[in-house]
């Protein structure tokens, strides 16, 4: 690459500096005469030179020699081109409601007219992103895009989210789009997988490093046709992010903008608990039980063993304690052990109000020869759960400078530093006690450790989980990341002749980060274990080189041709380290140096992608557009001989309203049909079969029972994951058709897209039958088929001088079906337990939940045991393990509604997710523990809905005072063994965002402009799932959003923002 840079430098210095400019200024108004603020004025011949109108609608622009035409554009108005003809003042009135020449950003940042595209793209403005001051970029996009499903894992600071466009293409691999920031592809997904996602803490995604406040706009390239130019990395679509650069500003003095957001978080949904019954089992009080199947709380003083009203060992010691009962944990804590029965809500006692304080400062300026923007941001969050929080610092700079008529240079640089404190979930549930502590137990008021010994816990139950109040001081789940990414470019542009323009651009970029994670269960964790520590991290350095040449040729007045050729090289080196320690010598120093058993590992890996690509676009009369792309990639991570692949795409767009017959139809403003075909693949990772030191994890073991080296002796066995030397890239063939219609001067619009993807030869670790001797084989196998319908619609029902009502709707329906898996494979494990688990299964949508079902008869009715006298008489039975839930929703409908009155605007974003299932471990376990409200009535009899084996409806009456054990047996011993009982529909409707904003029309003081907003997120929730917010789940993998078990709760946020600009 060095040679290329050198040649380019030589090239640059050999060019003479061209001069000769004049200033053109004027006023832009709409057709009612109102001045337009922020209208864009660009020199057509020099697209990099432009400005926007100021508060009075004025602009002033230095037009270089050769600049003949100005292009004026403003959202919701017709773009117009005016020839300068030597004038120094050009005033213009733009007519409202026509957006014929909307410009969108496409692959490699190429701006193209939206009408020329044969595929769907969707853009988000900075205002849409920053509506409610969300610090999380992915969260800020929820509900605002069609064809996209964004699934957050929880409300914990830094929680991961799944971002999937038009369904999944990979079973176990990456389904997230490629993120490209200012032309540079960057890492956006989680650097470490949560694996089976039933232990440890969530691990955040690297999109977290992007501060939404730095963003100017986002363009989503959804289909493969849109992203095909990016080759192997782009089968999942592309998210193009443009950060603030000062480009759109008018030439003048620097604009300084300061934004503050304060956001307050609360738990979005509180479970309904039973509040009648105490800790215990089968009606008997047991102060150490995890269950609340004890006596009535009010009867505790009469308990024969612990009651203050009865004669027992404790009253023998202390004397009668009328109306009280003995709590051993209080005795352990050195407090008066006698308590009057009381009902506690340990859930609400625990959570605090989270607070996020965000401050952003941005300085931007456009000068005659370029522009720059510098931004600083600080985000400081404390979570709703004790000890959780996030601090993030962002700094960015971007700029561009025109050196002469031909050369311009620019750069974009971003730095971020984050520190996140998390909590663990599922089998390591930090909040298990908070969720399921008996109502009779005062979790908050009882000491969490023995006085004087902070490492011996006091808890209401046995040792599988830590006391939630002990956790913040002893366990630690932390992520710290430092990251820099940025790029610099040099651009050379020249007119080859009057109708032919050439642009050559070279860009070099880098994305470097180091992330350090620490998982610690402190000394004294879980049944007085001596603790476990794991320090691990990744340093990644990515170098990206991109060279491209663009030729635009106006062949004649009807025909135009644009051709691009390019080369890209992406080189990544990763180093992962891991230090594991167990068995601390003493408490209070949870450090690897205090661990008696220490193991370490490291891994270094490298990968390189080289691509050659080309694009040709031909248009006729601004009516028909044909676009063809091709890219050939060479990928190091594939086996020799199978590293080179070619990906073509073709797109056609036909603007019907350019037809003479349709040009004068009043009610139809715009009509276009489009279609495209593309192929894009995804590469896998191939390695020669190797040996490794075995690890003893999983199953019953909470920590490895055998850790090599054992007494200085090591061992290596064949890796149970083997590799197919004939691995080839998986391929996605995509067909997309769409129509775009706008009516009544663009007051109403509809954009529909149908797309079909056929993904074949998926690469994944194909699970093998254990009897083959290996666990899995990395090979091609399997097909997934996706049909997606997307509708983007907008309407402006009311628009007058002061009041405007805008509606935007995004509808997504994705059918994602697993057509086949490799021979002999019926399912692929994605996460969870042995059962229930999340998996991909043939003939099902992707993914599904698999587990033990209710035993049913041929009619699908639940069978109950008919065995009088048996403990489970009249109760359901465990059936065969099978698919018990489909995760994909039937559809997602997002709606944005904005009322604007003068400078006041009220915006709401609503999202309705319809259908789909999730596993809710917490709900099932609340039932098992006898803590959910459904277990409140223990005196009535019940008949379990179902049929007896003979087919007659179940009429077996159980429960009631004569049969007191039956209800506990049902919930604790029968239903909890049936995974299907834990499956819930997870349809929901959420008021995701609500924002009331006011911008002062005029500067309040000299040049100071102020905007304020009040907002709320996740404000209203209707959910088919009981007790929990359905957007709390386990895992940062493809199982995301479908599996919940002591997961951390989701939040509702309220906040305000202030923006000062001067």
């Amino acid at each position: 690459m060095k040679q290329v840079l050198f040649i380019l430098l030589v090239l640059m210095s050999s060019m003479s500096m061209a001069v000769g400019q004049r200033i053109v200024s004027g006023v832009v108004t709409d057709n009612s005469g109102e001045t337009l603020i922020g209208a864009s004025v660009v020199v057509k011949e020099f697209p990099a030179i432009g400005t926007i109108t100021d508060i009075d609608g004025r602009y002033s622009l230095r037009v270089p020699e050769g600049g003949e035409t100005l292009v004026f554009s403003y959202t919701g108005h017709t773009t117009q081109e005016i020839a300068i003809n030597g004038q120094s003042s050009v005033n213009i009135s733009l007519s409202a409601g026509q957006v014929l020449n909307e410009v969108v950003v496409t692959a490699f940042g190429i701006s193209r007219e939206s009408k020329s595209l044969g595929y769907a793209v969707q853009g988000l403005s900075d205002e849409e992103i920053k509506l409610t001051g969300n610090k999380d970029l992915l969260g800020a996009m929820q509900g605002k895009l069609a064809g996209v499903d964004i699934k957050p894992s929880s409300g914990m600071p830094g929680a991961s989210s799944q971002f999937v466009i038009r369904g999944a293409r990979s079973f176990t691999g990456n389904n997230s789009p490629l993120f490209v920031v200012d032309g540079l592809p960057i890492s956006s997904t989680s650097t470490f997988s949560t694996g089976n996602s039933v232990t440890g803490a969530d691990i955040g995604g690297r999109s977290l490093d992007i501060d939404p406040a730095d963003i100017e706009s986002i363009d989503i390239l959804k289909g493969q046709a849109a992203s095909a130019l990016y080759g192997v990395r782009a089968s999942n679509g592309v998210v193009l992010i443009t950060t603030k650069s000062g480009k759109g500003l008018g030439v003048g003095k620097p604009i300084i903008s300061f934004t503050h957001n304060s956001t307050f978080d609360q738990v979005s949904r509180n479970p309904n608990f039973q509040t009648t019954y105490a800790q215990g089992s089968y009606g008997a009080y047991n102060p150490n039980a995890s269950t609340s199947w004890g006596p009535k709380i009010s009867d505790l003083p009469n308990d024969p063993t612990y009651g203050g009203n009865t004669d027992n060992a404790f009253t023998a010691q202390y004397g009668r304690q009328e109306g009280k009962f003995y709590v051993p944990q209080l005795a352990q804590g050195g407090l008066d052990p006698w308590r009057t029965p009381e009902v506690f809500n340990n859930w609400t006692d625990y959570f605090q109000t989270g607070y996020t304080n965000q401050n952003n400062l941005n300085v931007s300026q456009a000068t005659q020869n370029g522009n720059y923007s510098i931004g600083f941001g600080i985000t400081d969050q404390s979570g709703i759960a004790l000890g959780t929080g996030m601090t993030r610092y962002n700094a960015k700079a971007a700029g561009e400078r025109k050196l002469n008529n031909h050369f311009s240079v620019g750069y974009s640089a971003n730095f971020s530093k984050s520190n996140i404190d998390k909590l663990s979930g599922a089998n390591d549930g930090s909040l298990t006690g908070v969720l399921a502590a008996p109502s009779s137990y005062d979790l908050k008021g009882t000491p969490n450790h023995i006085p004087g010994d902070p490492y011996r816990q006091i808890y209401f139950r046995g040792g599988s989980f830590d006391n939630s109040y002990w956790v913040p001081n002893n366990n630690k789940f932390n992520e710290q990341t430092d990251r820099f990414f940025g790029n610099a470019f040099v651009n050379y542009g020249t007119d080859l002749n009057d109708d032919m323009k050439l642009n050559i651009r070279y860009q070099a970029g880098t994305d470097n980060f180091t992330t350090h994670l620490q998982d610690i269960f402190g000394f004294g964790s879980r049944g007085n274990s001596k603790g476990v520590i794991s320090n691990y991290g990744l340093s990644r350095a990515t170098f990206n080189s991109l060279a491209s040449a663009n030729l635009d040729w106006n062949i004649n007045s009807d025909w135009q041709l644009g051709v691009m050729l390019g080369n890209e090289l992406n080189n990544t080196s990763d180093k992962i380290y891991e230090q594991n320690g167990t068995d601390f010598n003493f408490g209070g120093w949870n450090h690897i140096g205090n661990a008696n058993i220490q193991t370490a590992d490291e891994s270094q890996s490298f990968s390189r992608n080289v691509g050659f690509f080309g694009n040709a676009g031909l248009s006729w009369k601004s009516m028909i557009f044909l676009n063809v792309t091709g890219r050939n990639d060479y990928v190091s991570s594939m086996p020799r001989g199978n590293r080179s692949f070619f990906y073509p795409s073709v797109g056609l767009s036909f603007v019907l309203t350019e037809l003479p017959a349709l040009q004068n139809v009043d009610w139809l403003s715009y009509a276009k049909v489009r279609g495209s075909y593309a192929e894009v693949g995804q590469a896998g990772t191939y390695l020669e079969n190797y040996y490794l030191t075995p690890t003893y994890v999983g199953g019953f073991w909470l920590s490895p029972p055998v850790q090599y080296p054992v007494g200085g002796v090591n061992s290596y066995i064949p890796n149970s994951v083997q590799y197919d030397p004939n691995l080839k890239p998986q391929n996605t063939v995509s067909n997309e058709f769409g129509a775009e219609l706008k009516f009544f001067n663009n007051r109403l619009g509809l954009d529909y897209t149908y797309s079909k993807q056929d993904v074949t030869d998926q690469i994944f670790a194909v699970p093998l039958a254990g009897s083959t001797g290996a666990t899995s084989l990395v090979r091609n196998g399997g097909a997934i088929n996706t049909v997606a319908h997307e509708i983007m619609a907008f309407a402006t029902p009311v628009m007058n001088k002061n009041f405007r009502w805008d509606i935007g709707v995004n509808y997504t329906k994705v059918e994602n079906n697993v057509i086949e898996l490799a021979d002999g494979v019926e399912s692929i494990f994605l996460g969870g337990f042995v059962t229930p688990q999340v998996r991909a299964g043939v003939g099902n949508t992707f993914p599904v939940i698999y587990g033990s079902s209710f035993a049913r008869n041929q009619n699908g009715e639940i069978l109950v045991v008919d065995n009088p006298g048996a403990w489970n008489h009249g109760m359901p039975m465990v059936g065969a393990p099978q698919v018990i839930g489909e995760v994909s929703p039937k559809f997602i409908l997002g709606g944005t509604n904005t009322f604007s009155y003068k400078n006041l605007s009220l915006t709401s974003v609503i999202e309705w997710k319809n259908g789909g299932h999730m596993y809710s471990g917490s709900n099932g376990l609340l039932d098992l523990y006898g803590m959910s409200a459904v277990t409140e009535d223990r005196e009535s009899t019940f008949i379990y809905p179902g049929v007896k084996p003979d087919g007659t409806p179940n009429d077996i009456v159980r429960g009631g005072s004569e049969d007191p054990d039956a209800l506990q047996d049902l919930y604790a011993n029968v239903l909890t063994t049936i995974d299907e009982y834990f499956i819930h529909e997870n349809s929901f409707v959420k008021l995701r965002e609500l924002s009331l904003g006011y911008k002062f029309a005029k500067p309040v003081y000299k040049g100071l402009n102020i905007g304020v907003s009040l907002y709320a997120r996740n404000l209203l929730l209707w959910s088919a799932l009981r007790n929990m917010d359905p957007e709390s789940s386990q895992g940062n993998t493809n199982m995301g959003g479908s599996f919940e078990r002591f997961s951390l709760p989701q939040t509702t946020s309220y906040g305000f923002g202030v923006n000062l600009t001067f």
Partner: protein
Amino acid sequence: MRKIFNIVIFGLLITSMWSCSEDVLDDINRNRNNPTNVNSNLIITDAMITSGFTITGSDLAFYTSVYMEHNVGIWNQSYNAEIRVGEPSSATTFNNSWNAIYNNMYNLKTIIDKCSDGGSEEGNYHTLAIAQTLLAHNLATLTDLMGDVPWSEALQPGIVYTPKLDNQEDIYNEVHRLLDDALANFDKTTKFPSLGNQDFIYKGNIANWKKFANGLKARYMMRTSFINEDFDGVISFANKAFASASEQAQLTYNGTTMISPFYKFFTDRNYFGASQSLYNKLDERNDPRIDVLWKPAAGTSEVEIAPNGNPVQVQGRYGVSAISVPTAPTYLLSYHEIEFLKAEAYVRKGDLGSAEASLRKAVTAALSKSNIGLASKAAEYLDNEVLPRFNSNPLAEVMNQKYLAFYEEEAIEAYCDYRRLLAMNDDVIKLDNPKNAAGEFPHRLTYGNSDVTTNINVRNAYGDGRYVYTEKVWWAGGSR
């Protein structure tokens, strides 16, 4: 101008083409983190640890321990096994064990291939013989618990995806063939160095390995006694096996980087309570072990014994094992088992004198286990309690003593003995779980889920999993 562009384009092409040549990309993709080949002495270490810890010592033993009423499952999966809900018939229950056994057999096969003719370590006869011995042990354990299993088409990843099931009879022939080969190979001389410290069982002592292989021959001949009685054969091989506990095939644990499975199961899960039926057997014999096998649950002061089949599902109430300690060894084949095999064979041959002698050695060894430590009480116990019972019903006492001796590390063997005795109409070990009378004694363990879901042959054999309650394995009088 044009020339410069040409240079730029040409330069770009050259650099790019070079940067993606196959050799360069090969080097970039080279695995820097793992070896692609290692010698058999470094592989076999884990084959031993897995054979002991995982296969003999862990899940299979935990569940059979519940079925055999060595322990009572009082929580979660173990409780479900106790009340025969879900776990006993679920394909997921033994999936980890199933995969571990096949994985370990694949490792052993890799060693055997390396050390056999044409392999990279041709002539490494002793390592070969050790691998054959362990493979025989693994394969027999698998078929003993699961019946007909894939073998002849197994262990070919990426070649055979759905191995067929082989008859247990054929598999048993294979077990004996492996052991015979091993015995022959132990006698060959080799230039390859001894395994030394890589050998976690015998530190490279080939004489002991040979005794182990002979002992396995005895065990597996006895196993098929319902089909084919050869008690002389059992005695003959047993006589060539261990002469004392110091020679037995056991995996020892250092308690830190390698922890005894039952102890680890207790600290990590705490799913077991003291068993009533085991307690009763000790109680009626005034067995000194009654005072050392259990201790009260943490936070309680008395050992509460859990009823078999219907305990309360609660942790921290019932007494727990006191012999689950961090260093309690796992026996792949114990010396006391050898003596019990002889005792049973002599009883069945009618040679009660020899039987008594073997029984004395067996019971003494059992009471002398490192985590029991009752050697000093053995003679008195034998004289006062065991021999009178032996005299009234020799087979019953031998088998019951064997059953007691197997608590708690050798539950798998206890389970195999129990099923064999049922087949031979010698129902001498009394189990109390009421589910057994209701037709819910699991006669076998389920196949692993990885095969049930991906191998049609195993799935058909598995059905809905209820076969475990009805279908006996071949050597126990069943058909598959």
